[in-house]
C-alpha cells in the first residue's frame, strides 16, 4: 500500500556508474552460478586425469585443474557453494540481529540490557577460534559452520537496528502512533523497520562480502568441508599445491572472489550515496563555478537620488539578493533586492513570517550564510566598508570588532565541551589580544554586565548546567564582548519563556542605550517590535513590503501584508465565552 517515493532510490543507485557497474557484475556472477546446471550439465566432478593442468581448449576456456576437472565448471559449481553458504550466514545474521535489535532499541529497559549484554559477549569472542571449536564439536559440515558464522556477525545488525530504533523512540510520530492505538509490533514494522531499511541494506552488502571471504578462508584452510564439493576457497587450496608449476590456477578463483567482494563493497558505497539522502551533492560540485557578484556601490542611477542619499554610516544594505543552490544546479533566489539602513544607536526590527527571507538578510550582513547560499548581488556597507565580495579576513575583522551576533537557539550555540568562561575568553584573547588573566577578569565584568548574579560560578559552569535564559545572557555577553557598534539579533527570545523574554528584552534595551549600539532585530513577534524597535521593516517572500517608524507600522500600517500580520495577533481577540451544556450527541 505504500506509495513509491517520488525519487526512487533504486533508480538513483543505477544512475550512479559505480552502482550500475557493481550491480551488473553481481548479477552476472549470480546468473552464471545459478545457471551452472544449464551451462555445465555434466557437473564439476567429471574428470579426466589426462587433461590435468591442460590449458584452455575448445569449450573449456579456463583449462583444467590438477585432477583434470574443467576449471569453468569448478568455478560455477564452487560459486554455488561459496555464495550460497555466505548467503546463509547473512540470512542467519539478519534473522537474529534485526528483530532483536529493533526490539532492544524500541522497548529499551531490561530487554535492551540483556540483549546488549549477550551481543557484547558474542562480539568479544574471537570468530576464527569459535569456528574451529565449532568444527571440532559439530563436525566439518559447512552449513553448520555458516550458521555459527551467522550468529557471530549478527551483532553488527543488532547494534545498527538498536541504534536507529532507540533514536526513533523519542520521535513524536512514534508517540502519535502509540496514541493512535497501534500495538507495538505494528509500530515496529510500520514506522521503525522503514527507517532501518536503508542502513541495513548497506550493512548487508558489506557483511555479504565479509561472509564470502570467511567462507573462502574456511575452504582454503580445509576446515569447512571435505574435498568432495567444490568451492572457491577449496579451489584456491588445490591451486596452492601447484602454485610454482601452474600459477594460473590461482587466478580464476582469486578473480571470482575478488570481483564479487569488490562489487559488493562498491554497491554498498553506491547504496549509501543513494539512500542516505545527500541531495545535490554531485550537482553542488557542478555549480562551484564562481559567478561574479554584482556589487552595486552607487545605486543612484538605478534607485533614484533619495535612496542613494540616505546611506547610513553604520549598516547600509542596497539591492541585496541571496540565492541558494538547487538540486539541478540552478540557483533559487530567496532575497530579492533588499534595502535597509541601521543608524548608530537605532533599533531596526526586521519582521516577517517563516520563509520571508528575514534571517537570510541578517546572516548576509555577517557573511555567515549557510552552505549552498551566497550573496548574488547588491551592496552591504558596514562602517563604511563594502563587505559584498570582500575577503574572509576583512569579514572576520568586522565580525569580531564592529558586528556582534545574538543567535536564536542559545543552547545549540554554546559548545558543550568548554566552560562558559573559556568560551567567552577566547574571542577576547584572539580579537583584543588580552592575556589570560585580563581576559578572565573581563569575562566576569561581562557576565556582571548582563545581570548574572553569580558571575564566577557561571563562568566555571558548562552549558548544560545553566538555564536557557542564562545561556542567552551569556551569548549576549559574548556578542558585546569586543565592543561592537552593531548587534545582529536573530529571534533572540523566541526559544524562551515569556517572563525570561521580558528580562532579555530589558537587557538588550539597556545595553543598546548604554553603548549606543545599532541593533538589527529579526523577529516574528510584533509585541517584541513594540517593546524595543525604533523602526520596522516588514518582509514577505524575500522582499521588503513596508518600512517605517514602529508606531506608524503598528498603528497605521499601509501594506495589506502588515495589516494581515497585525490582524492575526490574538491579544485583542475576544476571550472565549464560558462553557454551556450543549445537546449531547447521540451515544451511538
Amino acid at each position, binding site marked *: 500500500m505504500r*506509495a513509491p517515493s517520488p525519487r526512487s532510490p533504486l533508480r538513483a543507485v543505477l544512475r550512479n556508474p559505480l552502482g550500475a557497474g557493481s550491480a551488473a557484475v553481481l548479477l552476472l556472477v549470480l546468473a552464471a552460478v545459478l545457471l551452472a546446471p544449464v551451462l555445465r550439465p555434466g557437473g564439476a566432478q567429471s574428470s579426466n586425469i589426462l587433461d590435468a593442468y591442460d590449458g584452455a581448449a575448445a569449450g573449456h576456456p579456463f583449462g583444467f585443474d590438477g585432477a583434470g576437472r574443467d576449471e569453468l565448471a569448478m568455478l560455477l559449481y564452487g560459486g554455488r557453494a561459496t555464495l550460497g553458504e555466505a548467503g546463509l550466514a547473512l540470512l542467519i545474521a539478519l534473522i537474529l540481529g534485526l528483530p532483536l535489535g529493533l526490539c532492544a532499541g524500541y522497548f529499551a529497559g531490561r530487554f535492551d540490557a540483556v540483549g546488549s549484554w549477550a551481543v557484547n559477549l558474542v562480539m568479544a569472542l574471537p570468530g576464527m577460534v569459535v569456528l574451529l571449536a565449532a568444527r571440532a564439536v559439530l563436525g566439518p559440515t559447512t552449513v553448520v559452520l555458516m550458521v555459527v558464522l551467522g550468529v557471530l556477525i549478527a551483532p553488527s545488525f543488532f547494534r545498527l537496528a538498536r541504534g536507529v530504533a532507540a533514536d526513533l523512540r523519542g520521535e513524536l510520530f512514534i508517540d502519535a502512533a502509540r*496514541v493512535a*492505538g497501534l500495538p507495538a509490533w505494528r509500530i515496529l514494522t510500520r514506522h521503525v523497520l*522503514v527507517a532501518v531499511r536503508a542502513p541495513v541494506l548497506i550493512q548487508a552488502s558489506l557483511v555479504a562480502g565479509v561472509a564470502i571471504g570467511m567462507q573462502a578462508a574456511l575452504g582454503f584452510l580445509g576446515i569447512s568441508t571435505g574435498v568432495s564439493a567444490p568451492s572457491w576457497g577449496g579451489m584456491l587450496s588445490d591451486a596452492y599445491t601447484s602454485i610454482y608449476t601452474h600459477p594460473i590456477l590461482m587466478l580464476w578463483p582469486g578473480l571470482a572472489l575478488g570481483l564479487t567482494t569488490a562489487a559488493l563493497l562498491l554497491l554498498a558505497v553506491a547504496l549509501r550515496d543513494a539512500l542516505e539522502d545527500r541531495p545535490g551533492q554531485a550537482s553542488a560540485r557542478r555549480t562551484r563555478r564562481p559567478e561574479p557578484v554584482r556589487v552595486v556601490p552607487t545605486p543612484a542611477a538605478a534607485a533614484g537620488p533619495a535612496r542613494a542619499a540616505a546611506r547610513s554610516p553604520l549598516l547600509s544594505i542596497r539591492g541585496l539578493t541571496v540565492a541558494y543552490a538547487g538540486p539541478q544546479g540552478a540557483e533559487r533566489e530567496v532575497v530579492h533586492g533588499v534595502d535597509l539602513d541601521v543608524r548608530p544607536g537605532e533599533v531596526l526590527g526586521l519582521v516577517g513570517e517563516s520563509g520571508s527571507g528575514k534571517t537570510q538578510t541578517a546572516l548576509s550582513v555577517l557573511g555567515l550564510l549557510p552552505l549552498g547560499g551566497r550573496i548574488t548581488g547588491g551592496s552591504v556597507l558596514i562602517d563604511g566598508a563594502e563587505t559584498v565580495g570582500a575577503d574572509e579576513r576583512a569579514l572576520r575583522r568586522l565580525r569580531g570588532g564592529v558586528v556582534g551576533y545574538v543567535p536564536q537557539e542559545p543552547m545549540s550555540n554554546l559548545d558543550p565541551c568548554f566552560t562558559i568562561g573559556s568560551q567567552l575568553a577566547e574571542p577576547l584573547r584572539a580579537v583584543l589580544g588580552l592575556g589570560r588573566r585580563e581576559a578572565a577578569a573581563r569575562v566576569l565584568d561581562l557576565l556582571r554586565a548582563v545581570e548574572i548574579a553569580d558571575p564566577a560560578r557561571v563562568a566555571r559552569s558548562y552549558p548544560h548546567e545553566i538555564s536557557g535564559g542564562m545561556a542567552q545572557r551569556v551569548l549576549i555577553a559574548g556578542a558585546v564582548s569586543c565592543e561592537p557598534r552593531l548587534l545582529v539579533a536573530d529571534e533572540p527570545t523566541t526559544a524562551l519563556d*515569556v517572563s525570561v523574554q521580558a528580562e532579555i528584552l*530589558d537587557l538588550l534595551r539597556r545595553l543598546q542605550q548604554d553603548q549606543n549600539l545599532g541593533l538589527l532585530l529579526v523577529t516574528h513577534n510584533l509585541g517584541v517590535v513594540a517593546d524595543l524597535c525604533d523602526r520596522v521593516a516588514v518582509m514577505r517572500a524575500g522582499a521588503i513590503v513596508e518600512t517605517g517608524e514602529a508606531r506608524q507600522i503598528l498603528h497605521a500600517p499601509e501594506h495589506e501584508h502588515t495589516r494581515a500580520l497585525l490582524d492575526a495577533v*490574538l491579544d485583542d481577540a475576544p476571550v472565549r465565552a464560558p462553557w454551556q451544556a450543549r445537546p449531547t450527541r447521540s451515544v451511538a
Partner: protein
Amino acid sequence: MNTDDEERRVNAADEMLLTIDELCVSYRGRGLRTRPRRVLHEVSLGLRPGETLGLVGESGSGKSTIGRAITGLARAESGRIEFAGERVEHADARRRRRLAKDIQMVFQDPYTSLDPALTVGDTLREPLLAQGVPAKQAAARVATLLDRVQLPADAAARLPREFSGGQRQRVAIARALAPDPRLVVCDEPVSALDLTTQRVVLELLLEIQEATGVSYLFISHDLSVVRFLSHRVAVLRDGRIVESGTAAEVTETPQHPYTRRMLLAAPVPDVDRQRERRAAFARARSGAAA
C-alpha cells in the same frame, strides 16, 4: 435498561468527561543513584463534554506531562484519571488501544509528529487501522477527514514533506479526529506555526468543536492563544496548579501573582500599551523579589 440509558443521556451534559484527581507523576533520572524527579504534584482538574480546558505554564511546569499521562505516554505515580466514569491511569496495552478510540492527541511539532516515510493517507488510516475499521470504510473516512480540515482530496497520496507547517498540522489534527474521539489533547499545537497560520488553525479547531462536540485539553505557553480557545483556564507552575477559572477570570482579573506576571511579560503590539505593560512588569518583578 432503556430508562437507565435515557437518564444517562440527560445527565451526560453535567457529567465530567475527564476527571483528574491528585495526580502525581515522576520521571526517573538516568543512572542508578539518581532519585526520581517529581514533575506533577497532586494536580486535580475536570473537563466536561464539548469543553476546552486550557493549561498554561512556562517550560518545565509539567503541562505537557498532564497530557502525556492522560494518553498513557507517561505513567501516573499516584492519583486518579477518570475518563467517562472509567479509571484509566493504569490501563494496560489492550485497554489503551480501546481508549484510543476516544482519546487522541495533536502534538507540538508538525514536522516530527508525522512519519516522513508514510503518505498522508497512510498516516490518517493509522488510527482507523488500530480500531479495526475495514479498508474501504477507512478510505472513505480519510476523504471526509481531509475535507474536514480543508485539505485537498489528493493530499492523501502525498508525503508530509510536500506540505507547509500549517498544512502538516492540519494533517495531524485530521489524524486525531479520525476515530471520532471525545477528547483531543492538544499539546502546543500552534506554537511552531506562523502568526497568520496559527490563527487559521485555531479557528479550525474552534469550528470542529462546534460541529462535533469534542472536548479539548489545550496545552500552551501562550496565554493569548489559550484564552482564544478555552472556556476555562488552569495555570501551572512547577507541577502545581496555581490558579484556575473561566478564561475571562484568569486572563482579565488574575488572582495569583504568577499569572499576573505571565500576562504582563507578554509584549503587545502597541507602542504605548507595551510601555505601560513593561513598567507594570518591572513593578511586579521587583514586588516578587522583595
